[in-house]
């Protein structure tokens, strides 16, 4: 029977907290940049300009069809050789995470907007709204509600995906757990604490998301 001993691990509590802090920063940072990239890409995909469309699609397919781990390695080790500058591992991590999630967000935004019946746009136009007014007052609020579950789902995945940045030595929660394990030789405790910390952050968030979704469904 294994004898749990968290005391050794508790000594490194500050490392876990530091790692968790970084994980949160990378998650929210990449979500923020990802939303920007996603909106631009979505706009490009919905535009009638063929070149824009092609560029946006190419970007999306590259990032959706390669594993995030591969992208991280490529941006940290390969990309600098290509452009002849060194890239800080933290920059490479934020860049890759943002581009990765942006490709998926773009698809979520696009699906949400396209799912709104064209009668809505027509009804808005019929009372004299400009296309911009129709978009902001009629189409976007409905599309937002419809894309929210997928958006939250992708963002939860993103939080967990940040653990991959540890392979390029960014000191996130997963990296710190490995460090603690190296110091204490207590893998069970180190990695269990890590797992618990992911749950402690994500569980309240998914609950809050469910609550928000129920509230937004009031008009259905």
């Amino acid at each position, binding site marked *: 029977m294994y004898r749990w001993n968290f005391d050794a691990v508790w000594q490194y509590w500050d490392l876990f907290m530091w790692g968790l802090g970084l994980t949160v920063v990378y998650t929210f940072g990449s979500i923020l940049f990802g939303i920007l990239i996603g909106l631009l890409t979505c706009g490009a995909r919905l535009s009638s300009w063929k070149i824009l469309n092609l560029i946006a699609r190419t970007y999306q397919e590259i990032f959706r069809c390669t594993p995030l781990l591969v992208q991280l390695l490529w941006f940290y080790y390969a990309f600098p050789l290509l452009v002849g500058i060194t890239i800080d591992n933290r920059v490479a991590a934020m860049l890759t995470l943002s581009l990765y999630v942006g490709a998926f967000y773009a698809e979520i935004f696009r699906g949400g907007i396209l799912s709104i019946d064209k009668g809505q746009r*027509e009804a808005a136009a019929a*009372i*004299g*709204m400009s296309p911009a007014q129709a978009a902001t007052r009629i189409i976007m609020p*409905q599309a937002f509600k419809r894309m929210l579950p997928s958006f939250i789902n992708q963002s939860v995945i993103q939080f967990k995906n940040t653990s991959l940045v540890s392979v390029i030595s960014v000191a996130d929660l997963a990296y710190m757990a490995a460090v603690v394990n190296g110091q204490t030789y207590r893998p069970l405790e180190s990695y269990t604490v890590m797992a618990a910390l992911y749950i402690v952050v994500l569980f309240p968030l998914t609950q809050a998301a469910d609550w928000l979704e129920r509230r937004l469904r*009031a*008009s*259905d």
Partner: protein
Amino acid sequence: MSDTSIDRDPVIQAIGLRKSYGTLEVLKGMNLTLARGEVVALIGPSGSGKSTLIRCLNMMEQPTAGTIRFRGKEIGRKFRDAGDKIGIGTLRRNVGMVFQHFNLFPHKTVLENVTEGPIVVCKTPRAEAEEQAKELLAQVGLQDKHGAFPNHLSGGQKQRVAIARALAMKPEVLLLDEVTSALDPELVGEVLTVIRRLAQDGMTMAIVTHEMAFAADVSDRVMFLDQGSIAAQGSAEEIIRNPDNERLASFVSRFNH
């Protein structure tokens, strides 16, 4: 087929109107004039171009050729007024449209659906817009539904909200595109009653409908469209009750009235 109304103060006119989708010509050069206060019913088999015609009148469809005039001025292709041409935005502010499938804004309450146009497009103060919306909703018999969301209403109620929404813009013309076609038969009457009252109050309307009895009853003039052209037009008496054209007679006879 005399048409005495054309000389009377035309509100909206279509001249030489053509519309094609690819190689399919849906409207083959059509002229239509709505005089102030006139109610025109557009009848005809599906695919005859009735809906396309009234959708061109508020530029919901861009005509392939021909012009639309509103109060004598040509409508441009831009949203805003440009030079001596009226913008599409201005046109639509003054020409209301009611759709077959209602197209209410599902994320807004009944009251918000009606106040949306005045507040956003006309910049009417909220309090004033709400007061006016409540009046309109009372007129269509929905004074107790202000806070309801569209998805909780029956089809007939939805369509009456849609009519109130269009009226809130104080339009000079109302375009009704098969507004009872998506309704259960027992709900058709409540919507027709509202439209009949609008006709009595002098609203200028173009009505695409399959309700022959209603068309005969409410309209000053009936137009029979067939394969993208106006095949016959005249009073309800001439067109619906005593059709002299063979295709028209066979079309009308399929509806009992």
